[in-house]
């Protein structure tokens, strides 16, 4: 093989592996979106189907209700879409007898007991197979009368061909493939919003996220500038202290922070979900690292022109650091939007005024456990906005994850 062919093969293999993983990464989200558009009964059908569907029905003259359509394989082997007319008909599965007197299992037919009659007149003809006696019936098949025996008795449904109502077939309803049509139910979203006050939770989450992002950018920009560009006693010691705190897990703070909120009277209130998160060592660190790369000369020229530190920060540093600000905003957005542990601690279950999306989802999980479509509609409301924000801001976000190497 030529070098070019080997390279092409290698490229194809790489794309194949990456695509398989792409499917693995995306599949749960597809399940979420499509399940959220199903009806509750549709979610429990087996085998699972990805697309939301509903059973196709057809209006037929002479029938009050629309009739459900099924894919039925006729005795001739041809598959047709046929409408179910009647259910729970007691029938027998008949097998013809071959010349040796044995039943032929490959050519069975289904007939109502009213349609067939016993062979051999009044006394009845019987045949012994494997030591068991079985009555023989005369059954019409393909225009001929044949002698057959009953293999099993079962209940079936009667199907008719909508195009030709005289053509009827008996078949097992449960084993027949229903004709499905893709049908989305976006009203699930409206239902979930009404069920648990998701609208209030969405508003609260949006407000908390917005205020946390603004507040964090404010403190981080000011602090980052002070660490990067202003000389004052204790600066480097405080900066080291800040760096050390990045290692401390949040769980160590959760009890004292909760007690602090109790002391101020902020339990079950919005400020408890915003104010503790206005300071972050990570944000300050990120802004400081970015500000340090801005050339000093610009700032010195502005100082000589009599500009204040505040105007240097707002006129020179902030416009020059849009990528860092976008990164910090995205990180904070994701963190504030997705946080669960702290709201769980500080907001009681059932409180609606300070409800956030993740908490509402937790309640919904318990209350709508028999409607996965509603639960996943709620999950979609919580998952889709941050995903959109990430896709919009990913140019900055992914670059900065890779360059600064900090985890949210």
């Amino acid at each position, binding site marked *: 093989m030529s070098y070019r062919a080997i390279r092409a093969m290698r490229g194809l293999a*790489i*794309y194949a*592996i*990456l695509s398989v*993983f*792409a499917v693995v*990464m*995306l599949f*749960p*989200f597809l*399940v979420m979106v499509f399940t959220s558009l199903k009806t509750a009964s549709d979610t429990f059908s*087996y*085998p699972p189907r990805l697309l939301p569907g509903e059973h196709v029905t057809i209006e037929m003259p002479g029938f009050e209700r629309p009739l459900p359509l099924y894919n039925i394989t006729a005795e001739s082997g041809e598959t047709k879409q046929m409408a179910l007319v009647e259910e729970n008909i007691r029938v027998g599965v008949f097998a013809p007898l071959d010349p040796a007197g044995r039943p032929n299992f490959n050519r069975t037919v289904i007939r109502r007991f009213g349609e067939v009659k016993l062979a051999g007149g009044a006394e009845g003809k019987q045949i012994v197979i494997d030591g068991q006696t079985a009555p023989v019936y005369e059954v019409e098949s393909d225009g001929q009368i044949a002698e057959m025996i009953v293999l099993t008795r079962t209940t079936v449904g009667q199907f008719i061909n909508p195009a030709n109502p005289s053509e009827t077939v008996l078949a097992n309803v449960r084993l027949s493939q229903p004709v499905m049509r893709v049908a989305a139910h976006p009203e699930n979203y409206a239902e979930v919003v009404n069920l648990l006050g998701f609208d209030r939770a969405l*508003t609260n989450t*949006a*407000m908390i996220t917005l205020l946390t992002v603004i507040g964090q950018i*404010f*403190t981080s920009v000011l602090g980052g500038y*002070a660490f990067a560009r202003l*000389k*004052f006693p204790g600066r480097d010691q405080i900066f080291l202290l800040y760096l050390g*705190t990045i*290692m401390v*897990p949040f*769980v*160590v703070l*959760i*009890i*004292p922070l909760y007690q602090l909120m109790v002391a101020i009277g902020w339990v079950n*209130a919005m*400020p408890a979900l915003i*104010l*503790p*998160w*206005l*300071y972050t*060592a990570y944000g300050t660190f990120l802004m400081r690292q970015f500000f340090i790369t801005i050339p000093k000369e610009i700032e010195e020229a502005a100082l000589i022109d009599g500009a204040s*530190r505040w105007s240097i920060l707002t006129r020179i540093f902030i416009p020059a650091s849009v990528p860092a600000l976008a990164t910090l905003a995205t990180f904070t957005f*994701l963190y504030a*939007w*997705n946080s*669960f*542990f702290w709201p769980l*601690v500080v907001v009681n279950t059932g409180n609606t*005024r300070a409800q956030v999306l993740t908490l509402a989802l*937790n309640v919904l999980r318990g209350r709508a456990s028999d409607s*996965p479509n509603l639960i*996943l509609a*709620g*999950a979609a409301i*919580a*998952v889709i906005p*941050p*995903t959109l*924000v*990430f*896709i919009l801001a990913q140019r900055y976000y992914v670059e900065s*994850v*890779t360059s600064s*190497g900090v985890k949210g």
Partner: protein
Amino acid sequence: MTRSTFASASSAPGSGRALTLLAGWHVALSVALVGGALATLNSAAASEALRIAAAIGLALAASGSAAATLFIARRNHLGRTLSLVVNYIVFLACLIGLAHTLGVFMGLDDLADYMARGFPFGMGALFVVGYFISTTALHERPVSLARRNLGRVLMALGAIGFLLTAGVVPALASLPGKYISGNLLPLALTAGVMTTGYLLWSMWRGESARAMGAKNIHTERLNGWLFLSPNLLGFILFFAGPLLFSLYVSFTNWDSFNKRDWVGLDNYRRVFNLTVQALKTANQPAGDVIDVRVYDELLRANLFGQSYLIGAEDKRFWISLRNTLVFGLLAVPLAVIPALALAALLNSRLPGMRFYRTLYFIPSVAAVVGVALIWQWMYNSQVGWINYFITNAISLINSVLGSNIKDPQIRWLADSDYALLSVVIMSAWQWLGFNTVLFLAGLQTIPRELYEAATVDGANPGQQFFNVTLPMLAPTTLYVLTTTTIQALQVFDQVFIVSNGTGGPGTSTLTMTLNLYQNGFQSFRQGYASALAWVLFVVIFAFTLFQFRRQRRASGAYDM
């Protein structure tokens, strides 16, 4: 420049009066602060430790204020610094206190009531649109004044509309009522804010600075502390203070309400208290050898033909420790090794790699709660996708190989043997993309020349991977391992959702953080839960240190 020189020459007498006023203020403030410190010590409002701490803080401020008086009298620049710092602290305290008493913070809830009607969001959007129109108008050549004005009108409309629809007007209307309600606190705090605000301004002015002999470097220092102050305030109030308080609480038996006695190391003793007893027979009842009022049977072990029984005072801690370590041991390799392989593939510089990179990243930005709910549905043992895939894969294998493997029909989250594994899989899935991106960035920093040299030396791709890529990638690998481990050891959201907060079925998904939550916020043993938090902190810290040390040794081996 000329303007300020002129100003300093002519306004010296004015700044002198202002400085006298400031000196007088600091005398009064010192007296008031000392009085406040004494009153705090004698009051019965809070615990003794808190009162002492507050009194010390007030006394420090009082001495700072007194020193400021002295230095101002001597026109020493230290006086300006001290005065500004003390007044700034008083200003902030009054401002925050005022906001609190006027209900500004709790007003966020009312704001949310109005926001929930949707209009304020529209008004905010109008404001933002107006801002964009007006700024883009200024970047055009020629500058379009009409467009700028249109943008400004939209901004004004948006701002006014927001104030009206967001309930700011009724909130402002309710303020005067709080002043005349007979409570003097809002009035006093407002007076404090205005006084210190005025004094800060008068000391910060250029005239006062020159009169006090302050130089640019002193102003820069003050600017530094001023710019850092919002950050530092958050750090002290919401991080450093709570951290120290948490350590203190872990030495008490606090039940979150009344009881809070110092118990020393008793919480930590209870966490780690184990007993090992030899058994006569392997299934001797536990009550024969351990005091069942104190200890629970943790496990039985057989060592050299002798059976032992290990009892623990807090059995759930040891179970949660085991679950957390098992979770970490499984989830970290699952989230790191495939990430490295994917990153190596993404690094092949073929078109479309950015698309895959973005795609892999998406799970890590989704809310863990939402992701857990999706996976919980996929794990459904009857109609879930995962069992459906397994059933199909097994029947495919059976039909191709003619083998007769039975479909296991795993019950995943409902089966205590598989529940933790289920959480491992969903967490690894969620963390994989993030680690891939980190590895990819690390791979892109490796110089191509190294691979060219290795190829010239006849190294095959496998040798290149182990002898060039892995050593060069060591810092990234360390970082990925550390952060993933820290995340894994703190796992909470996932297990809370899938087990309904119980850690079940049984205790199979009880992790350390969940155990802490149950102790602190379901049984309200907050002292004990704080001790558990510090134990978790130490475990995390130990893992991080261990990884750093191993890394240092490994990188030493590759030194050339």
